[in-house]
């Protein structure tokens, strides 16, 4: 009995710490700032990455790169740019990365699964181009989808052999920047600055006669868009 009494307090303390740890594991229960660690930081990093923000390795450690990513997210979403993921920041992050539901509230998962792939292509092909040019590159893929001469899904169009140099040289596998994700979303909503183009190319880097023979529609940044 004596032994049980002497162990009672430490066991209760350990249990409460474990429970606290589990409770803290949920994103949104506390503000996260530089130096924080744990599963909730990892969850936040993962959500930021899915929206195109660079946070360094997905390691659950709130380091300087994660802080920079949080600040950029705050800046681009009209929030106070302090690098601390407080309630407003986390709520906005959760809202933008939540799944879809039907009219009865049943979870349907993420509906725009192709946005990320399209954004990766934009990132590979038009990183450094003006934003409007990035939307136009995304629109070219969507225009191909509607044309009978091309396959009918975004992934089939993007992975058509040698269709895009960014796929052939592996740049498609880089994490897309937030502007590429925004551009992909805007093109998917129906905006098409390319005027219905099916091809785009950099005139300084392309000598392919086929691509030069196509009717040119518009020049945005370093790209000529053609049909």
């Amino acid at each position, binding site marked *: 009995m004596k032994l049980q009494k002497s162990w009672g307090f430490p066991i209760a303390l350990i249990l409460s710490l474990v429970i606290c740890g589990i409770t803290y594991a949920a994103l949104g229960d506390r503000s996260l700032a530089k130096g924080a660690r744990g599963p909730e930081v990892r969850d936040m990093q993962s959500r930021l990455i899915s929206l195109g923000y660079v946070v360094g390795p997905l390691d659950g450690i709130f380091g300087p790169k994660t802080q920079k990513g949080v600040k950029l997210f705050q*800046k*681009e*979403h*009209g*929030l*106070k740019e302090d690098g601390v993921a407080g309630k407003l920041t986390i709520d*906005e992050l959760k*809202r*933008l*990365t*939540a*799944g*879809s*539901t*039907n*009219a*009865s509230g*049943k979870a*349907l998962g993420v*509906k*725009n699964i192709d946005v990320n792939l399209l954004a990766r292509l934009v990132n590979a092909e038009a990183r450094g181009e*003006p*934003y*409007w040019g990035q939307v136009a590159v995304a629109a070219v893929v969507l225009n191909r989808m*509607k*044309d*009978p*001469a*091309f*396959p*009918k899904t975004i992934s*089939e169009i993007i*992975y*058509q*052999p*040698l*269709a895009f140099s960014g796929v052939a040289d592996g740049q498609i596998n880089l994490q897309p920047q937030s502007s590429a994700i*925004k551009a992909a*979303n*805007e093109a998917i*909503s*129906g*905006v*098409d*600055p390319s*005027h*219905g183009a099916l091809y785009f190319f950099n005139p300084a880097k392309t*000598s*392919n*006669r*086929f*691509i030069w023979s196509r*009717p*040119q*529609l*518009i*020049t*945005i940044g370093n790209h000529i868009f053609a*049909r």
Partner: protein
Amino acid sequence: MRARGLQNAKKAWIGLLLLALLVSLAWGYNKNREASELSLVAENHNRRSLQNLAGHLTKLETIMAKEAVANSNKQKILYLGQAWSHCEDAVRDLAQLPAEQTGLNYLGQFLTQTADYAQVLAHRLASGGVIDPAEEKQFNDIHEHLLSVNNNVQQLLHRVDNEGLAWTGKTKGFRERFNLGRSQLAEAAAEGQESLPSSVSGGLEQLNASLQKLPPFSYTGEFSTREVPEPLGLSRGEISREQALTVAKDFLSKVGFPNRAPELASETSGLLGGYLWRSGNVLLEVTRRGGVVSSYRDQRTPESRLLSVDNAREKVMATLKSLGWQLELTSTEDFGPYLQLEAVSEKDGVRCYPDKVRFMAAMDNGELIGFDASAYYAFHHERNLPKEILSLKQAASKLRSDFKIAESRKAIISKEGNQEVLCYEFRGHYQGEDYLVYLNCTNGVEEQILRVIQTPRGEYIE
């Protein structure tokens, strides 16, 4: 002593070099093993794709033959649906095979067009239409083309199986290396001097070239016919660059940028071609024909979110009104720093969905930061709507009896083949889901069904 020391150092160096040699040999062996494994994975993947391609083409050929003889709509729809599916699978397999040069892939195009054609005919039969003799003949012509495609692909498969045919050409010639035109293989095929290809990709390239020799496949697809040849919403007559600048300045002053002097960024061509103007972060395009602003984009990043969704929406709608637009708002998506909205024209209680305008509102001050009226100017026109139509009650009786109607209205929607159709739009609830069902006002046929879901950014229709 010194000589002994030198000898020891020499031995140590030799030992180190031997160790380095052993390490590099082990590294090389390991890399070679990894490369062999990857090569085997790629070989298996390529073989599977080619085998699947040949399989789908063979089945497609049989199905097209059966479709030709079928005389009932039910059978025809079944075969057309199967043909469509096999074509799409074949395109997918073709896209997995290694290729050597970019450019239009005629085989892929042929298969995609065939899929599109089969889909269009199946839809038409399913909605009570018919296939006319010219279309029957077109489908038979495609079948004839397919026989020759099949033969070529099967030969390639046979040579891969029995002769170890390479997937891609081993070396490139001077002309290909420096991109001086098509390869000799393709040119030889186009000129009728078909030689035996030395690789699968070469064989497919030869097949592409030989397809170009066949009589043209006149079907260019629904997309090309859905595009209007000229913008229906723009008046005739073109404006000059100076006039376009005046239009641009006027628009800018109404959206919060008075006294701006935009510079010409590019002249554009196409259906709504004109002049692209730039002023700082702002881009806007004025059409040559009709002289209207077809698109506008302020690329600034909005500051802190200060407005509610309703406030921002009200402000941006007021701006649109000042630009002369009277539109019915149909959707709002909240992206955080900005809202993305869509609105359509409405006349005599009929919503015209093809006449769509997309725009964006900043959540810091409600300014218009994006505007795209391309669809509106391409499709808006005076429409002659049918007079003899079903009553709302008659149309509603065509719905499932357990579909709970929440809203209804008349609407014009687009359908395949550059057609518009006047429908009753019923928004309602069925088995825990929200739907929009469009019934043809004239005959009650279900023209379209859309599902409404909730996404983090707002309502989404799929």
